[in-house]
């Protein structure tokens, strides 16, 4: 598939828009459909598309293994961090009202960060599983 001209051109055109759509889904999740899980899945899908067209080794240069593996843990830690930030600010665990002087603003802030954490974890997990499977295919 690496030498297919149509796929390469279409991929080059589409992948930026897929990533842009993922960002839209991520940050517009408060207002429209979407959120962290969906955005993470879309980013992972874009990267899988990229890896299929340009080869696994190229994709691994863009997002190396250590980065993907740390993304898996970093997202969860970010989520937990928001929980502990609520504790630190004087509320309960995962309490967003205390994150800002204005409770509604605090809710926005809390939701923003936990959605980001979910997106990072989901994207890392899906990409890591894809890398492992695709690599086994190449070993044979």
């Amino acid at each position, binding site marked *: 598939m690496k030498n297919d001209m149509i796929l390469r051109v279409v991929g080059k055109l589409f992948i930026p828009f897929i990533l842009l759509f993922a960002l839209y889904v991520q940050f517009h999740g408060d207002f429209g459909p979407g959120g962290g899980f969906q955005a993470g*899945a879309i980013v992972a899908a874009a990267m899988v598309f990229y890896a299929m067209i340009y080869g696994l080794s190229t994709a691994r240069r863009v997002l190396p293994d250590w980065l993907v593996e740390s993304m898996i843990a970093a997202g969860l830690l970010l989520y937990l961090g928001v929980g502990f930030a609520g504790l630190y600010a004087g509320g309960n665990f995962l309490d967003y009202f205390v994150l800002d002087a204005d409770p509604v603003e605090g809710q926005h802030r809390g939701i923003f960060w936990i959605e980001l954490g979910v997106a990072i974890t989901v994207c890392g997990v899906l990409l890591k599983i*894809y890398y492992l499977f695709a690599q*086994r295919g190449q*070993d044979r």
Partner: protein
Amino acid sequence: MMIAVVALARVRNLFAVIVLFGLYSFLTATVMVALDAVDVAMTEAAVGAGISTVLLLAALRLCHSEEEKPVHKPWLPLAVTIGTGLVLVYGTWDLPPFSDPEAPIHTHVAPRYLEDGPRETGVPNVVTAVLASYRGFDTLGETTVVFTAAIGVIALLGRRRHVRRGKQ
């Protein structure tokens, strides 16, 4: 969808089965849109039709592309499946009718989320408000489940790579 399911059961070529699975996922996503669950539809389209299809194709590269003839007769599994299905259908008789406003699910906490959610959280999308704010602990649990699943897969598939590298 019926055609896709029947074809899934009949076709022996695994490549065709994977493509039909993707098709089935997309059809499920359209059903979710028809039920006004756009968030779920998005996830289904991205994960069900997109990424799991790719993963299945990657797995297909490691094995034969034709399904083997079954060793056992299909009658016992068929009987078990039909029996379970009948019990489940019997169970649905006690459920309230579809979109009944008096159903317990619509009278418990849902009105509070719908009425006070936008004011308390300032988030117009109620799905996000419930997921991230009211049910923040549940979502934390889900993220942990995804994390644990990934650790499991890395432990199963990633370890072999190191062993092989060590031998060389």
